[in-house]
């Protein structure tokens, strides 16, 4: 949270391809989901890497500081990142 720069423009996480990395600039989910994501280690300022995406609009598998998390495309869309 403290690393967040409000001027930073983010794009949706879904624009990343497997192997690409990005830095989270904002979570745009509801309050409960945001809290859950933060406690799982997904929060502003963290660097994530897309490990795999599943075909047919399937889920994303990402790595954040050594933890892998899988979530659906809808959830991925609401995570804004800047590409690295």
């Amino acid at each position, binding site marked *: *949270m*403290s690393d967040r720069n409000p001027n930073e423009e983010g794009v949706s996480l879904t624009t990343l391809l*497997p192997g690409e990395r990005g830095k989270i600039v904002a979570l745009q989910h509801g309050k*409960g989901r945001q*809290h*859950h994501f*933060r*406690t*799982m*280690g997904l*929060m502003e300022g963290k660097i994530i890497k897309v*490990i*795999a*995406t*599943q*075909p*047919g*609009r*399937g*889920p994303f*598998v990402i790595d954040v*500081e*050594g*933890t*892998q*998390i*899988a*979530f*659906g*495309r*809808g*959830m991925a869309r609401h995570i804004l990142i800047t590409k690295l």
Partner: protein
Amino acid sequence: MKLIALAGCPNVGKSVIFSRLTGVNVISSNYPGTTVDFTKGTTFIGDEKFELIDVPGTYSLEATSKAEEVAQTMLQEADFVINVIDATHLERNLYLTLEILELKKPSIIALNLWDETRHLGIEIDVVKLEKMLGVPIIPTCALCGTGMKELAAKVSDAQPSQTIGPLSEEKRWLKVGEIIRDVQVVHHRHHTLKERLADITVMPTTGISIAIAVILLMFLFIIEIGNAIINYLLDPLFYGYYGPWIVTTVNSFVPSGLLHDILIGTSTLESLDFEQSLGILTTGLYVPFGMVLPFVITFYFMLSVLEDFGYLPRLAILVDTGLHKLGLHGSAIVPTILGCGCNVPGALATRILETEKQRFIAMTLMAISVPCMAQSAMIFAVLGRYGLRWILIVYATLFVLYIFLGLLLKRIVKGESPELLLEVPRYRKPDPVTLLKKTWAKTYGFLAEAVPFVILGIFIVNLLYVFGIIDILMRVFSPILTAVLGLPEGAIVALILGILRKDIAIGMLLPLGMSPQQLTVACIILATYFPCIATFVVMVRELGVRDLLKAAGLMVLVSLSVGILMRVILIGI
């Protein structure tokens, strides 16, 4: 007895620590009034006996979910708290730690997976961390047992933290950041080979091939080991020792009559018949112990291996897209696989699904088209003698049904089907002790459920025959069984018993002298028409009467339609 609560985030090795600290007297149960499962056991520290409770793993105590609420209540009831932290993910674990310490319970911290920090390039200043958190911290490696003695020795002297007071959510995050800056240094490192290997199991092309191989190997293993146990251990025991002894013993007390028939049925010393004699002490014991148990044990062992290894979440990711088409999501694979062992834990495990729609679909699909291991073992035993293709027809039919009904239910059941969200744990080497304990607990669950019902079933069948009720039932149901489904009238016995237990019901088909075609149709009907009573009871509890009636109506409809269809295909009109 004083209560120690073992709390931590998911996937931190909490259950391994739990099984290290407790003996065999571990009970798994449901938290009253909720659908949250937890495990409880006892442990001796010095001479004093403590109760140890494995609090459901949660990321926080905010009480946004039932599991978090339960975790909070359990912690409040505890006299001591052991907070298990994953040392390789310190930052993510500290939020919960702060919340726990804010409760002001006497606490200590197990810094687990300590052995892994070094090669991951993580350095943690434990002394400083101890000072900042104000409670003792013991670096542990639950798998190798390091730190367990110290943990047990220190817990009863624990004190509430003096340094951590109540914080707001935002302050808590700031505190986490502050602690991490002060105590942790992470050296840059490259992706290790092990991690690369782990990654290919979630990539679509490689992952799916690996998944198919894993599942095939698992079932091959279950069948081969199960058969070996039967051929080299159980059959020699039953036919060589137990059979002659029980027949001689029963004959010497009750040489004939009703009691004799109920006890050992038609078995004689010359022709020991465990499969068809229908005695409580012959068929009643042989079916659960001699035919089903070996497969149940190997199934649960293999499942525990996959579970502890950390493979199931990956499987969930790979099948997510497919299961979404059925109104479910990837996590539904876990109850489905469990249902292949027994539908009862399978139905309970649908609780990991978030919405009622998903749970209804998952349970209904399971009850109709996921045969439990007891049922599978009997289908193999009964149809296997006519060749593999009959077995394949049964399973292919059930599989097609699963897909077809899922597609249908997704459209007609109201409600939400949310997306998948799960943490993918690192692969871990399973701990043999935990594996064996898990296998035993699940197998015991099977025995406790199966044996009484099998024996009751055989008892009922005997009574039905003795009082001639069977003849009446056969006459009543003969139009539908014979004319519509092409089965002999006697199959009604199997259908009645199938409500009680599926394994013994399939066994009931044996004396009817059916053709393989008829047996195949009968097995499909038995699998689909109704769940066994134990599953039924769980479904009432989980779904409520109204939804259950809907599911049951669907079962009867589906079973009858598929039965007729398969009759036309296999037997002809």
